[in-house]
């Protein structure tokens, strides 16, 4: 087994281990939540005996660790159980929302990531020029605005004033691709504004950091043009930090969009999770939480692997 394979396998297995720990942690968290589902559904007027009967029906009378193991066993067989609150299959509940969340995340990512890297490169290339300062200040302002505020302002200008885009990002399985792209343009734009800034600033910083290296001076003294220095000499060496930041932001596009979902009433996973937490619907919370953690971990592992791949020291042993 090569060193590279070992590194990659090490990262992946660590990721899987983390996933397990996260699921256990979330379970403990749900256990600690005050109040329970039975009470939630039956309301204040329920008598102790009805409560007890209902708990037994839901399996809530089992000891916590048994329920966890039971759940874990199910997950390993691909069965996420049924929602306690609505009695429906968790996978059925998750399916359309998952698709929506992934759609929005992909939409935003496909635009944001290349845009951020290109802007970052340009800002690094023309650093300390008016362009650089302008882009930087815009980025800073975008970072500094609460997300919901950005969303509302976009709605004001693009929906209410200009009437170009709808304010409700309603999509479902029947919506065609173009229509879906059109309807979810505003939430995607909000997300793009939020993540581009960070990725772009990091790209710029990483590139500029590398530009101080002696091999960049060497390249200049070989008569290599500036854009080629940035793209050919600096970018490959700045890839690791850039990829890491991009991964972090892409993960954010999947797991951190609750606020945007609320503003545009977008039926995504975030709202589902918030609903499930407030109704103590533990199988749903677990499933969504697990998915979120998996996204985060996968993207990070991918970023690590890309960093490893982009580093010839690790790719080729001595």
């Amino acid at each position: 087994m090569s060193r590279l394979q070992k590194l990659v396998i090490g990262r992946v297995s660590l990721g899987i281990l983390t996933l397990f720990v996260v699921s256990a942690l979330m379970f403990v968290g749900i256990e600690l939540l005050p109040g329970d589902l039975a009470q939630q559904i039956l309301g204040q007027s329920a008598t102790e005996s009805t409560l007890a009967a209902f708990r037994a029906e839901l399996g809530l009378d089992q000891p916590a660790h048994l329920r966890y193991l039971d759940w874990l066993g199910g997950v390993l067989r691909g069965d996420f159980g049924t929602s306690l609150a609505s009695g429906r299959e968790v996978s059925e509940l998750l399916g359309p929302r998952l698709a929506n969340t992934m759609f929005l995340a992909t939409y935003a990512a496909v635009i944001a990531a290349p845009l951020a890297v290109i802007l970052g490169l340009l800002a690094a290339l023309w650093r300390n020029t008016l362009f650089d300062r302008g882009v930087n200040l815009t980025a800073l302002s975008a970072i500094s605005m609460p997300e919901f505020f950005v969303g509302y302002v976009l709605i004001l200008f693009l929906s209410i004033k200009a009437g170009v885009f709808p304010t409700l990002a309603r999509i479902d399985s029947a919506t065609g691709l173009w229509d879906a792209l059109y309807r979810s343009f505003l939430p995607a734009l909000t997300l793009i504004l939020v993540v581009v800034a960070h990725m772009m600033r990091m790209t710029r910083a990483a590139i500029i950091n590398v530009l101080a290296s002696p091999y960049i001076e060497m390249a200049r003294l070989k008569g290599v043009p500036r854009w080629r220095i940035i793209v050919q000499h600096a970018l490959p060496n700045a890839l690791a930090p850039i990829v890491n930041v991009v991964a972090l932001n892409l993960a954010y596009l999947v797991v951190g969009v609750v606020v945007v979902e609320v503003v545009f009433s977008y039926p995504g996973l975030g709202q589902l999770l918030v609903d499930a937490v407030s109704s103590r619907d533990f199988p749903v919370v677990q499933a969504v939480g697990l998915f979120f953690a998996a996204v985060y971990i996968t993207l990070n592992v991918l970023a690590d692997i890309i960093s490893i791949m982009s580093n010839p020291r690790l790719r080729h042993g001595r």
Partner: protein
Amino acid sequence: QAQPKKGGTLRVGFTQGSTSDSLDPATFNNDFMFASGYAVFNTLTEIAPDGTAQPDLAESFEASSDAATWTFRLRDNAQFSDGKTATANDVIASIRHHMGPESKSGIKPLLEQITDIRADGDKVVIFELAAGNADFPFIFNDYHLGIRQDTGDGTIDPNSRIGTGGYVIDVFEPGVRVELTRRDDYWKEGRAHFDKVVILKVGDPAARMNALMTGEVDLIDRPDLKTINLLGRAPNVKIHTQDGTLHYIMPMQTNTAPFDDMNVRMALKYGINREDMIEKVLRGYGTVGNDQPISRSMPYYNDDLEQITYDPERAKYHLKQAGLESLDVTLSTSDAAFSGAVDASVLFAESARPAGLNIDVKREPDDGYWSNVWLQKPFCCSYWGGRPTPDLMFSTGYAADAEWNETKWDNERFNELLLQARPELDQTRRAEMYGEMQKIVKEQGGALIPAFGQYVSAMSESVQMPEEVSEMWDLDSQRFIERWWMA
């Protein structure tokens, strides 16, 4: 007023609705399901704009002289969407679904008075009650009690979409949307005008209002009161308000010091500036409360009672009567009690201070407010909505043995009247008794009810409704889908 007209699609943006919603009527607990339920399933009775119970799926109902036996006769022409005609067995199965030890339904406690249900032929259902109850037909307006089909063994399929209502469900995505299409063969004349209805859950108030302004929806509930005037000015948008049974209350537990002293209670009642609260918390969309829970829109409302007003001097006077110079009390509050409760408490504290009443506003956690604070703390915030009759209101919230007796209220005369009025079929006698009960609660009780809220909604100009609407709940008591139309 234009005549109702068929056609059009109504798109609604609703505040409530949750992923855990299901079609099982026992689980209904939010507006989204109430409105959808009423559109698809009929109930035996409905509450008319004048506050009375009228036959709906039932053609008629009548009581025995002691009001303990009720006979409901069903319509002959009411068909389910699968073509079957509604029968007495369907009704019995639908009602039994909420009864019995297994039931988790919210209506269960109210059905406990029923000792027997039986069918008399295909079309007649007879209820035997443990004791006389003149208000019994009101119960059947409840959204839980939409009539479903008997599956043959005396039970219903809780997730069945087959009802006798004016609409059928095309799409049901819990917590997201429901899409309804009108039945052309609906049995009821002059109802169900929209061709299609789409209800979307739009939780964020700003998003709801934006969607209305951009024409993405035609009707929204609960617009943000702060900006509603601005919303009303938008082209093609109108605001609809209706009085209701919704009221806000700060219950004082009458068995706990210092609230066991009636003068202390009176001091606090005079120490709150009700107009200011309506102005600032309800943004004008409310009417002053008079410390008793029966609203103008309900039957037997007593309008002879003198309105209590903000009067720091009177408050001081009562305080002195209680032998106190000043009073320190803690008011437990949270926006979980009702939205704006914290603001209302803060305003209360501000207005009470000049009277020597020092109210310490204590914010309690939202989570668990209803289990840890309400009914536990001697002075807190709470609200009540939609009880169709004084009897239901008083017996759930003011009867000495009621579980939700927030004020720990135990008044001999009141308890006596409550029992007497319930089976009384003579309307004048009933009105007298309920009038007296309202007076007792107002003048002696621990309920500080500063305001009744109005139900506010906003819609495009093209949405039309009858001149009179039912005021028990929001949006024509959530029956707007069947009752309203598009211009």
